[in-house]
């Protein structure tokens, strides 16, 4: 057994265990924290596979941003788990169908490695061993797949604008802060020096 193999078993064991805890934890916040643990360990697995850029991206994007907002929401809402669990049986068939499809797909992917080993990776570009991960990914992403990449970015932009439009509501008749007018104020317009005789007032 080599050191990477040892770490592979450590990371994958923790990933599987924490993935199990995500669905079995009683407290929703604990469930999200286990999800984050699973993410971090998946990043460790990426790192072992030599995909260090993807590993760090997983940490920065999923753990550092997406999961934080997820945790934020789960902490804010008051989830009654007993009530949630009561509907479990009625949703179970749908969940099982989704699980079965996912399992089948995974089986097909894993099977292709066994059935036709020479076909694996045939669709990809040849990997230059001397080039580091980030550079290789960038060269492929911005040349060969540039339109797909831009298309994905456009889809995300539309989704983002859509989310903002759906939740934005303009209320009329409320006072709004205008930073420009606040910064544009001058002392001469707003402050007046007055000499007041004592006992008289203005």
């Amino acid at each position: 057994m080599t050191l990477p193999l040892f770490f592979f078993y450590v990371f994958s064991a923790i990933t599987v265990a924490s993935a199990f805890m995500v669905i079995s934890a009683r407290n929703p916040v604990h469930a999200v924290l286990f999800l984050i643990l699973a993410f971090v360990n998946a990043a460790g697995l990426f790192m072992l596979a030599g995909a260090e850029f993807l590993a760090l991206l997983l940490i920065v994007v999923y753990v550092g941003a997406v999961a934080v907002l997820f945790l934020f929401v789960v902490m804010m809402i008051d989830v009654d788990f007993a009530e949630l669990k009561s509907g479990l049986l009625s949703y179970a068939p749908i969940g099982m169908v989704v699980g079965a499809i996912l399992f089948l797909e995974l089986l097909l992917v894993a099977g292709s490695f066994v059935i036709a080993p020479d076909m694996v990776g045939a669709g990809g570009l040849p990997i230059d061993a001397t080039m580091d991960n980030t550079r290789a990914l960038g060269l492929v992403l911005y040349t060969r797949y540039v339109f797909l990449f831009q298309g994905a970015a456009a889809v995300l932009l539309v989704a983002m604008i859509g989310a903002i439009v759906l939740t934005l509501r303009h209320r009329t008749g409320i006072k709004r802060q205008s930073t420009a007018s606040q910064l544009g104020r001058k002392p001469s317009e707003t402050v007046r020096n007055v000499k007041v005789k004592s006992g008289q007032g203005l």
Partner: protein
Amino acid sequence: MDFILSALDYLLGIPFLGWGEQIGFVYKALALLVGLLIFTAFILLGDRKVWAAVQMRRGPNVVGPFGLLQSFADLIKFGVKEAVIPAGADKVLFLLAPLITATLALAGWAVVPVDNGWAMANINIGILYLLGISSLGVYGVIIGGWASNSKYPFFGALRAAAQMVSYEVSIGLVIITVLLCVGSLNLNDIVIAQSEMGLAHALGVPWLSFLNWFWLPLFPMFVVFYISALAETNRPPFDMVEGESELVAGFMTEYSSTPYLLFMLGEYIAILLMCAMTTILFLGGWAAPIDLPPFTWIPGVIWFFIKVTLVFFMFAMAKAIVPRYRYDQLMRIGWKLFLPLSLLMVVIVAFVLQLTGWGWHGGIA
């Protein structure tokens, strides 16, 4: 069990005894850790001294000469106090949160090159690793605030979640502008690029190496990074997460004794990490400011820590001088000012580099 022997050699190797090929990793890590903790102790004192000086007070001046041992006295005090865990708290998470903060802050230092090649791990994606570590820092605050099961810490946690995620975006974009100029994610390369190209070389005075560093060509980004670093580490004027005027002590309200000490330590080490990042990205890392004998005699590691201290002095001055921001104003400058500005700079820098052919291109001409 071959790997255990080779791992032991890597970790504990002693070159003088002919047992290992290199100085064991453990010794290097210990040297960095101990050095860093002592540095942090004095930085903590320096922070309080600067704050006191601005307010015309003396600051801590009782323990040791000039109060130099104050931090160590505090350490003993926090160590021997009773750790109070609130009855309604989630005990495991409550104790895990300060550990996460301290561990993550220390883990970030693993990739920081304090001199040419003097990093625990000289990895190709060093800057991305630092970004990842600093983005994970928010978890200590959120978990601590939630696990306390108390209102003020919870408010602190919610504020932290929004604030730290927002400012990560502008930090990421600032890092991208630097990376565009360097062409490598390796922290060592970023520093070397700053000594091998830049304004001083263009002007024909290569010995004026402080003109080479990125703070000059990327000055707007330097300012954005400095302010974002203040917000990312919850330093004043952006310390709404603690905000003692509104939230008692924010997410740390329920903490006492050693867990509190760990939070405090983690926070200061994270601040130093941000100072180190500023030094590496904009201030030439370990390089001497003027490339002539009296300056080059001083070892790089000393230059590095002088620069880190200088950046920290700016942090401390900001704490002493600037009044605390309002929370919505903080969000406004993060999203409406820094994000568009840094996005624009990414585009401008990319255009300039493409049109003029400047940049280091990862050492490949």
